[in-house]
Protein backbone atom coordinates (compact mmCIF):
# COMPACT_ATOMS: atom_id res chain seq x y z
CA UNK A 1 0.00 0.00 0.00
CA UNK A 2 1.22 3.47 -0.83
CA UNK A 3 2.05 5.57 2.25
CA UNK A 4 -0.61 8.07 3.15
CA UNK A 5 1.89 10.88 3.58
CA UNK A 6 1.03 14.10 1.81
CA UNK A 7 2.59 13.57 -1.64
CA UNK A 8 -0.16 14.57 -4.03
CA UNK A 9 0.45 18.27 -4.06
CA UNK A 10 -0.54 20.61 -6.84
CA UNK A 11 1.25 23.89 -7.20
CA UNK A 12 -1.79 25.72 -5.86
CA UNK A 13 -1.92 23.44 -2.83
CA UNK A 14 1.60 24.19 -1.82
CA UNK A 15 0.52 27.00 0.49
CA UNK A 16 3.58 29.16 0.06
CA UNK A 17 1.91 32.08 1.76
CA UNK A 18 3.16 31.00 5.14
CA UNK A 19 3.82 28.05 7.27
CA UNK A 20 0.92 25.74 8.08
CA UNK A 21 0.68 23.07 10.66
CA UNK A 22 1.05 19.47 9.61
CA UNK A 23 -2.33 17.80 9.51
CA UNK A 24 -4.33 20.88 8.49
CA UNK A 25 -6.66 20.14 5.61
CA UNK A 26 -4.88 20.88 2.37
CA UNK A 27 -1.70 21.75 4.16
CA UNK A 28 1.76 20.86 3.08
CA UNK A 29 4.28 20.76 5.83
CA UNK A 30 7.08 21.05 3.34
CA UNK A 31 6.08 24.60 2.63
CA UNK A 32 7.17 25.37 6.14
CA UNK A 33 10.73 24.45 5.25
CA UNK A 34 11.02 26.59 2.13
CA UNK A 35 8.52 29.37 2.55
CA UNK A 36 10.59 31.69 0.34
CA UNK A 37 10.52 29.55 -2.79
CA UNK A 38 7.12 29.50 -4.46
CA UNK A 39 7.34 27.97 -7.91
CA UNK A 40 6.02 31.11 -9.59
CA UNK A 41 8.75 33.14 -7.92
CA UNK A 42 11.42 30.70 -9.03
CA UNK A 43 9.99 30.63 -12.55
CA UNK A 44 10.12 34.41 -12.68
CA UNK A 45 13.72 34.43 -11.46
CA UNK A 46 14.61 31.75 -14.01
CA UNK A 47 13.05 33.79 -16.82
CA UNK A 48 15.06 36.83 -15.74
CA UNK A 49 18.20 34.71 -15.49
CA UNK A 50 17.65 33.58 -19.08
CA UNK A 51 17.39 37.23 -20.06
CA UNK A 52 20.83 37.86 -18.57
CA UNK A 53 19.88 39.28 -15.18
CA UNK A 54 22.77 38.59 -12.79
CA UNK A 55 20.73 39.59 -9.72
CA UNK A 56 18.16 36.92 -10.59
CA UNK A 57 20.94 34.35 -11.03
CA UNK A 58 22.39 35.27 -7.63
CA UNK A 59 18.94 35.08 -6.02
CA UNK A 60 18.41 31.61 -7.49
CA UNK A 61 21.81 30.48 -6.25
CA UNK A 62 21.07 31.67 -2.72
CA UNK A 63 17.57 30.24 -2.64
CA UNK A 64 18.18 26.84 -4.16
CA UNK A 65 21.71 26.03 -3.06
CA UNK A 66 20.80 24.91 0.48
CA UNK A 67 18.35 22.28 -0.76
CA UNK A 68 20.62 21.17 -3.59
CA UNK A 69 23.53 20.96 -1.17
CA UNK A 70 21.40 18.89 1.17
CA UNK A 71 20.37 16.68 -1.75
CA UNK A 72 24.04 15.93 -2.41
CA UNK A 73 24.82 15.51 1.26
CA UNK A 74 22.04 12.97 1.68
CA UNK A 75 23.40 11.07 -1.33
CA UNK A 76 27.14 11.40 -1.00
CA UNK A 77 29.66 10.79 1.70
CA UNK A 78 31.16 14.13 2.61
CA UNK A 79 30.54 17.83 2.80
CA UNK A 80 33.53 18.44 0.54
CA UNK A 81 31.93 16.28 -2.16
CA UNK A 82 28.64 18.12 -1.72
CA UNK A 83 30.44 21.47 -2.10
CA UNK A 84 32.14 20.31 -5.31
CA UNK A 85 28.91 18.88 -6.71
CA UNK A 86 27.04 22.07 -5.94
CA UNK A 87 29.58 24.17 -7.82
CA UNK A 88 29.59 21.79 -10.75
CA UNK A 89 25.79 21.78 -10.83
CA UNK A 90 25.55 25.55 -11.02
CA UNK A 91 28.13 25.65 -13.78
CA UNK A 92 26.10 23.12 -15.76
CA UNK A 93 22.88 24.97 -15.02
CA UNK A 94 24.50 28.09 -16.39
CA UNK A 95 25.59 26.28 -19.56
CA UNK A 96 22.18 24.77 -20.27
CA UNK A 97 19.89 27.47 -18.87
CA UNK A 98 18.31 27.89 -22.29
CA UNK A 99 16.75 24.40 -21.97
CA UNK A 100 14.34 25.61 -19.31
CA UNK A 101 11.03 26.64 -20.82
CA UNK A 102 8.74 29.15 -19.15
CA UNK A 103 5.62 27.56 -17.72
CA UNK A 104 7.27 24.23 -16.97
CA UNK A 105 7.87 23.26 -13.33
CA UNK A 106 11.22 24.67 -12.35
CA UNK A 107 12.31 22.35 -9.52
CA UNK A 108 12.32 19.16 -11.63
CA UNK A 109 14.54 20.96 -14.12
CA UNK A 110 17.09 21.86 -11.40
CA UNK A 111 16.96 18.46 -9.76
CA UNK A 112 17.28 16.58 -13.06
CA UNK A 113 20.54 18.43 -13.71
CA UNK A 114 21.75 17.99 -10.13
CA UNK A 115 21.01 14.29 -10.34
CA UNK A 116 22.92 14.03 -13.62
CA UNK A 117 25.94 15.73 -12.05
CA UNK A 118 25.81 13.39 -9.06
CA UNK A 119 25.62 10.25 -11.20
CA UNK A 120 28.40 11.52 -13.45
CA UNK A 121 30.55 12.38 -10.46
CA UNK A 122 30.01 8.94 -8.96
CA UNK A 123 31.03 7.23 -12.22
CA UNK A 124 34.10 9.43 -12.56
CA UNK A 125 35.07 8.71 -8.97
CA UNK A 126 34.69 5.01 -9.58
CA UNK A 127 36.88 5.23 -12.66
CA UNK A 128 39.50 7.27 -10.80
CA UNK A 129 39.55 4.71 -8.03
CA UNK A 130 39.93 1.88 -10.50
CA UNK A 131 42.75 3.75 -12.18
CA UNK A 132 44.52 4.23 -8.92
CA UNK A 133 43.99 0.64 -7.93
CA UNK A 134 41.77 1.40 -4.99
CA UNK A 135 38.54 -0.01 -6.33
CA UNK A 136 38.01 -2.18 -3.29
CA UNK A 137 37.71 0.93 -1.14
CA UNK A 138 34.69 2.30 -3.02
CA UNK A 139 31.90 0.38 -1.32
CA UNK A 140 33.29 1.37 2.05
CA UNK A 141 33.54 4.99 1.00
CA UNK A 142 29.96 4.93 -0.24
CA UNK A 143 28.79 3.32 2.95
CA UNK A 144 30.29 5.92 5.23
CA UNK A 145 27.56 7.39 7.36
CA UNK A 146 27.00 10.97 6.24
CA UNK A 147 26.70 12.13 9.80
CA UNK A 148 30.11 10.63 10.52
CA UNK A 149 31.62 12.13 7.40
CA UNK A 150 30.92 15.76 8.06
CA UNK A 151 27.20 15.71 7.35
CA UNK A 152 25.09 18.12 9.29
CA UNK A 153 22.36 16.28 10.96
CA UNK A 154 19.43 14.10 11.54
CA UNK A 155 17.96 13.89 8.05
CA UNK A 156 21.13 12.40 6.63
CA UNK A 157 21.28 9.92 9.50
CA UNK A 158 17.63 9.03 9.11
CA UNK A 159 17.85 8.38 5.38
CA UNK A 160 21.29 6.75 5.41
CA UNK A 161 20.04 3.13 5.56
CA UNK A 162 17.82 3.59 2.51
CA UNK A 163 19.05 2.62 -0.95
CA UNK A 164 20.14 5.57 -3.07
CA UNK A 165 17.06 5.62 -5.31
CA UNK A 166 14.68 5.65 -2.33
CA UNK A 167 16.75 8.24 -0.52
CA UNK A 168 16.57 10.68 -3.43
CA UNK A 169 12.81 10.18 -3.83
CA UNK A 170 12.15 10.84 -0.13
CA UNK A 171 14.50 13.81 -0.18
CA UNK A 172 12.71 15.36 -3.15
CA UNK A 173 9.23 14.64 -1.80
CA UNK A 174 9.75 15.53 1.82
CA UNK A 175 12.56 18.05 1.86
CA UNK A 176 12.34 19.80 -1.48
CA UNK A 177 8.54 19.61 -1.30
CA UNK A 178 8.06 18.34 -4.82
CA UNK A 179 4.92 16.53 -5.93
CA UNK A 180 4.96 12.95 -7.22
CA UNK A 181 4.68 14.26 -10.76
CA UNK A 182 7.62 16.60 -10.26
CA UNK A 183 9.79 13.86 -8.76
CA UNK A 184 8.90 11.63 -11.70
CA UNK A 185 10.02 14.40 -14.04
CA UNK A 186 13.27 14.97 -12.14
CA UNK A 187 14.15 11.28 -12.07
CA UNK A 188 12.96 10.50 -15.63
CA UNK A 189 10.61 7.87 -14.33
CA UNK A 190 6.89 7.29 -13.95
CA UNK A 191 4.68 8.43 -11.09
CA UNK A 192 4.01 4.76 -10.35
CA UNK A 193 7.71 4.08 -9.95
CA UNK A 194 8.09 7.06 -7.60
CA UNK A 195 5.15 5.85 -5.52
CA UNK A 196 6.67 2.40 -5.30
CA UNK A 197 10.03 3.75 -4.15
CA UNK A 198 8.35 6.00 -1.58
CA UNK A 199 6.31 3.06 -0.32
CA UNK A 200 9.41 0.89 0.07
CA UNK A 201 11.28 3.72 1.75
CA UNK A 202 8.43 4.15 4.22
CA UNK A 203 8.47 0.43 4.96
CA UNK A 204 12.18 0.59 5.77
CA UNK A 205 11.79 3.73 7.81
CA UNK A 206 8.90 2.16 9.69
CA UNK A 207 11.05 -0.85 10.57
CA UNK A 208 13.94 1.32 11.63
CA UNK A 209 11.94 3.82 13.64
CA UNK A 210 9.86 1.14 15.29
CA UNK A 211 13.08 -0.58 16.26
CA UNK A 212 14.24 2.66 17.83
CA UNK A 213 10.99 2.97 19.79
CA UNK A 214 10.02 6.24 18.18
CA UNK A 215 6.44 5.30 17.42
CA UNK A 216 5.30 6.05 20.94
CA UNK A 217 7.67 8.80 21.79
CA UNK A 218 7.77 10.56 18.44
CA UNK A 219 10.81 12.21 19.82
CA UNK A 220 12.35 15.04 17.87
CA UNK A 221 15.51 14.10 16.03
CA UNK A 222 17.39 10.88 16.00
CA UNK A 223 20.57 11.86 17.65
Amino acid at each position, binding site marked *: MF*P*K*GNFKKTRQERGYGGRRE*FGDPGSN*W*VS*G*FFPMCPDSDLEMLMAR*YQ*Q*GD*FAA*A*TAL*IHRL*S*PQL*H*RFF*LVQSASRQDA*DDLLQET*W*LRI*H*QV*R*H*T*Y*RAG*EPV*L*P*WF*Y*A*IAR*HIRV*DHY*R*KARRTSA*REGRLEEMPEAAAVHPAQAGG*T*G*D*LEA*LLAPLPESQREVIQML*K*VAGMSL*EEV*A*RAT*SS*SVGSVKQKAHRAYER*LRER*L*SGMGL*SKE*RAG*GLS
Partner: protein
Amino acid sequence: MRDGEIDEVLQRAAQVPHDVDPALLDRVAGSIGPSPGPVRPLPPAWVLAGGLVLICAAVALAGAARLGLYGIQKLSVLERALIFPALGVLFWLAAAAWVGEMVPGSRRRVAPGTLLWAGSLALAAMFAALFHDYRTEQFVSQGVACLTAGLLHAIPAGLASWLFLRRGFAVNALAAGLVAGTLAGLAGVTMLELHCANFEAPHVMLWHTAVIPVSAAAGALLAWATQFAGRLAPFRRRP
Protein backbone atom coordinates in the same frame (compact mmCIF):
# COMPACT_ATOMS: atom_id res chain seq x y z
CA MET B 1 3.93 3.08 13.26
CA ARG B 2 1.64 5.10 10.99
CA ASP B 3 2.67 6.99 7.87
CA GLY B 4 1.71 10.26 9.52
CA GLU B 5 4.18 9.57 12.29
CA ILE B 6 6.91 8.85 9.77
CA ASP B 7 6.00 12.12 8.05
CA GLU B 8 6.37 13.86 11.38
CA VAL B 9 9.79 12.34 12.03
CA LEU B 10 10.94 13.33 8.53
CA GLN B 11 9.58 16.80 9.11
CA ARG B 12 11.53 17.21 12.31
CA ALA B 13 14.69 15.91 10.69
CA ALA B 14 14.32 18.20 7.69
CA GLN B 15 13.69 21.22 9.89
CA VAL B 16 17.26 21.17 11.14
CA PRO B 17 18.70 24.29 9.49
CA HIS B 18 21.06 23.59 6.66
CA ASP B 19 23.39 26.37 5.68
CA VAL B 20 25.85 26.50 2.85
CA ASP B 21 29.14 28.29 3.27
CA PRO B 22 28.51 31.87 2.02
CA ALA B 23 31.99 31.89 0.48
CA LEU B 24 30.98 28.89 -1.63
CA LEU B 25 27.86 30.68 -2.84
CA ASP B 26 29.95 33.75 -3.67
CA ARG B 27 32.35 31.54 -5.64
CA VAL B 28 29.43 29.99 -7.54
CA ALA B 29 27.94 33.40 -8.32
CA GLY B 30 31.40 34.65 -9.30
CA SER B 31 31.88 31.76 -11.72
CA ILE B 32 28.74 32.81 -13.59
CA GLY B 33 30.14 36.30 -13.94
CA PRO B 34 28.57 39.73 -13.58
CA SER B 35 26.82 39.55 -16.97
CA PRO B 36 25.56 36.07 -17.76
CA GLY B 37 24.21 37.15 -21.14
CA PRO B 38 20.73 36.49 -22.47
CA VAL B 39 19.86 33.12 -23.98
CA ARG B 40 17.07 32.06 -26.30
CA PRO B 41 14.96 29.37 -24.61
CA LEU B 42 14.16 26.21 -26.53
CA PRO B 43 10.90 26.26 -28.50
CA PRO B 44 7.88 24.35 -27.16
CA ALA B 45 8.11 20.55 -27.18
CA TRP B 46 5.50 20.13 -29.93
CA VAL B 47 7.50 22.39 -32.25
CA LEU B 48 10.66 20.36 -31.67
CA ALA B 49 8.83 17.04 -32.05
CA GLY B 50 7.09 18.27 -35.19
CA GLY B 51 10.42 19.37 -36.64
CA LEU B 52 11.95 15.96 -35.96
CA VAL B 53 9.02 14.17 -37.62
CA LEU B 54 9.30 16.42 -40.68
CA ILE B 55 13.05 15.86 -40.96
CA CYS B 56 12.77 12.07 -40.72
CA ALA B 57 9.80 11.93 -43.10
CA ALA B 58 11.68 14.11 -45.59
CA VAL B 59 14.77 11.85 -45.45
CA ALA B 60 12.60 8.74 -45.94
CA LEU B 61 10.67 10.28 -48.82
CA ALA B 62 13.78 11.63 -50.54
CA GLY B 63 15.55 8.28 -50.20
CA ALA B 64 12.60 6.33 -51.55
CA ALA B 65 12.11 8.79 -54.41
CA ARG B 66 15.76 8.37 -55.36
CA LEU B 67 15.58 4.55 -55.24
CA GLY B 68 12.08 4.30 -56.75
CA LEU B 69 8.65 4.31 -55.13
CA TYR B 70 7.92 0.68 -56.07
CA GLY B 71 6.60 -0.38 -52.69
CA ILE B 72 3.87 2.21 -52.26
CA GLN B 73 2.73 1.66 -55.85
CA LYS B 74 2.23 -2.05 -55.17
CA LEU B 75 0.53 -1.59 -51.77
CA SER B 76 -3.27 -1.76 -51.64
CA VAL B 77 -5.27 1.18 -50.32
CA LEU B 78 -5.96 -0.67 -47.05
CA GLU B 79 -2.27 -1.47 -46.58
CA ARG B 80 -1.32 2.15 -47.21
CA ALA B 81 -4.05 3.35 -44.86
CA LEU B 82 -2.74 1.15 -42.07
CA ILE B 83 1.03 1.18 -42.51
CA PHE B 84 1.72 4.89 -42.96
CA PRO B 85 -0.53 6.23 -40.20
CA ALA B 86 0.96 3.63 -37.83
CA LEU B 87 4.44 4.78 -38.79
CA GLY B 88 3.29 8.38 -38.28
CA VAL B 89 2.11 7.62 -34.75
CA LEU B 90 5.39 5.88 -33.94
CA PHE B 91 7.30 8.81 -35.45
CA TRP B 92 5.44 11.21 -33.19
CA LEU B 93 5.95 9.08 -30.07
CA ALA B 94 9.66 8.64 -30.75
CA ALA B 95 10.14 12.33 -31.56
CA ALA B 96 8.28 13.42 -28.41
CA ALA B 97 10.30 10.94 -26.34
CA TRP B 98 13.57 12.23 -27.76
CA VAL B 99 12.60 15.84 -27.11
CA GLY B 100 11.74 14.80 -23.54
CA GLU B 101 15.17 13.22 -23.13
CA MET B 102 16.88 16.38 -24.38
CA VAL B 103 15.05 18.77 -22.04
CA PRO B 104 15.82 18.21 -18.33
CA GLY B 105 12.81 17.73 -16.08
CA SER B 106 10.46 16.73 -18.90
CA ARG B 107 7.58 14.36 -18.34
CA ARG B 108 8.48 10.88 -19.56
CA ARG B 109 5.32 9.41 -21.06
CA VAL B 110 7.00 6.30 -22.42
CA ALA B 111 10.38 4.85 -21.55
CA PRO B 112 12.81 4.63 -24.50
CA GLY B 113 13.22 0.87 -24.07
CA THR B 114 9.47 0.31 -23.98
CA LEU B 115 8.99 2.44 -27.07
CA LEU B 116 11.63 0.40 -28.89
CA TRP B 117 10.27 -3.05 -28.18
CA ALA B 118 6.60 -2.13 -28.25
CA GLY B 119 7.02 -0.17 -31.50
CA SER B 120 8.99 -2.95 -33.18
CA LEU B 121 6.51 -5.61 -32.04
CA ALA B 122 3.52 -3.54 -33.12
CA LEU B 123 5.00 -3.03 -36.59
CA ALA B 124 5.90 -6.71 -36.93
CA ALA B 125 2.37 -7.71 -35.85
CA MET B 126 0.82 -5.32 -38.35
CA PHE B 127 3.01 -6.68 -41.15
CA ALA B 128 2.03 -10.23 -40.12
CA ALA B 129 -1.62 -9.28 -40.31
CA LEU B 130 -1.32 -7.57 -43.69
CA PHE B 131 1.04 -9.78 -45.68
CA HIS B 132 0.28 -13.45 -46.26
CA ASP B 133 2.91 -14.51 -48.75
CA TYR B 134 5.06 -16.88 -46.71
CA ARG B 135 7.69 -17.71 -49.35
CA THR B 136 11.28 -17.03 -48.42
CA GLU B 137 13.01 -16.62 -51.78
CA GLN B 138 16.46 -15.08 -51.50
CA PHE B 139 15.56 -14.46 -47.89
CA VAL B 140 19.02 -13.52 -46.65
CA SER B 141 20.42 -11.71 -49.69
CA GLN B 142 17.33 -9.53 -50.20
CA GLY B 143 16.93 -9.10 -46.48
CA VAL B 144 20.45 -7.89 -45.94
CA ALA B 145 20.06 -5.47 -48.87
CA CYS B 146 16.89 -4.01 -47.31
CA LEU B 147 18.42 -3.84 -43.83
CA THR B 148 21.47 -2.05 -45.23
CA ALA B 149 19.37 0.38 -47.24
CA GLY B 150 17.20 1.11 -44.20
CA LEU B 151 20.19 1.74 -41.98
CA LEU B 152 21.89 3.89 -44.62
CA HIS B 153 18.82 6.14 -44.55
CA ALA B 154 18.64 6.06 -40.77
CA ILE B 155 22.11 7.64 -40.59
CA PRO B 156 21.24 10.93 -42.36
CA ALA B 157 17.90 11.04 -40.55
CA GLY B 158 19.65 10.64 -37.21
CA LEU B 159 22.34 13.19 -38.03
CA ALA B 160 19.89 15.82 -39.28
CA SER B 161 17.66 15.26 -36.24
CA TRP B 162 20.61 15.58 -33.90
CA LEU B 163 21.61 18.86 -35.57
CA PHE B 164 18.05 20.09 -35.09
CA LEU B 165 18.07 19.17 -31.38
CA ARG B 166 21.70 20.01 -30.65
CA ARG B 167 20.79 22.83 -28.22
CA GLY B 168 19.15 20.32 -25.90
CA PHE B 169 20.87 18.68 -22.96
CA ALA B 170 20.51 14.97 -22.27
CA VAL B 171 20.65 14.10 -18.57
CA ASN B 172 20.66 10.43 -19.59
CA ALA B 173 22.77 10.15 -22.72
CA LEU B 174 22.16 6.43 -23.16
CA ALA B 175 18.36 6.81 -23.14
CA ALA B 176 18.63 9.77 -25.50
CA GLY B 177 20.83 7.75 -27.87
CA LEU B 178 18.43 4.81 -27.78
CA VAL B 179 15.38 6.87 -28.61
CA ALA B 180 17.26 8.87 -31.26
CA GLY B 181 18.27 5.61 -32.91
CA THR B 182 14.66 4.41 -32.73
CA LEU B 183 13.44 7.54 -34.50
CA ALA B 184 16.16 7.28 -37.15
CA GLY B 185 15.30 3.59 -37.60
CA LEU B 186 11.67 4.51 -38.19
CA ALA B 187 12.84 6.80 -41.01
CA GLY B 188 14.67 3.79 -42.49
CA VAL B 189 11.58 1.56 -42.21
CA THR B 190 9.39 4.24 -43.82
CA MET B 191 11.82 4.49 -46.72
CA LEU B 192 11.65 0.69 -47.14
CA GLU B 193 7.85 0.66 -47.10
CA LEU B 194 7.84 3.29 -49.81
CA HIS B 195 10.54 1.60 -51.87
CA CYS B 196 10.62 -2.18 -51.34
CA ALA B 197 8.14 -4.19 -53.41
CA ASN B 198 9.00 -7.53 -51.75
CA PHE B 199 5.86 -8.31 -49.74
CA GLU B 200 6.86 -11.76 -48.48
CA ALA B 201 5.72 -11.76 -44.87
CA PRO B 202 8.96 -13.16 -43.35
CA HIS B 203 11.01 -10.61 -45.30
CA VAL B 204 8.97 -7.60 -44.19
CA MET B 205 8.50 -8.79 -40.64
CA LEU B 206 12.14 -9.57 -40.00
CA TRP B 207 14.33 -7.43 -42.20
CA HIS B 208 12.25 -4.27 -42.41
CA THR B 209 11.39 -4.24 -38.71
CA ALA B 210 14.99 -5.07 -37.76
CA VAL B 211 16.09 -1.63 -38.93
CA ILE B 212 14.56 -0.12 -35.77
CA PRO B 213 16.36 -2.17 -33.07
CA VAL B 214 19.65 -2.15 -34.98
CA SER B 215 19.50 1.61 -35.41
CA ALA B 216 18.46 2.08 -31.76
CA ALA B 217 21.38 -0.09 -30.62
CA ALA B 218 23.75 1.95 -32.77
CA GLY B 219 22.36 5.17 -31.29
CA ALA B 220 22.79 3.92 -27.74
CA LEU B 221 26.30 2.66 -28.50
CA LEU B 222 27.28 6.00 -30.01
CA ALA B 223 25.90 7.85 -26.98
CA TRP B 224 27.73 5.52 -24.61
CA ALA B 225 30.99 5.94 -26.58
CA THR B 226 30.64 9.72 -26.53
CA GLN B 227 29.95 9.69 -22.82
CA PHE B 228 32.86 7.33 -22.20
CA ALA B 229 35.21 9.48 -24.24
CA GLY B 230 34.04 12.54 -22.30
CA ARG B 231 34.84 10.86 -19.00
CA LEU B 232 38.22 9.71 -20.22
CA ALA B 233 39.17 13.20 -21.39
CA PRO B 234 40.42 14.42 -17.97
CA PHE B 235 42.74 11.40 -17.74
CA ARG B 236 44.14 12.02 -21.21
CA ARG B 237 44.95 15.60 -20.29
CA ARG B 238 47.04 14.49 -17.36
CA PRO B 239 50.78 15.01 -17.83
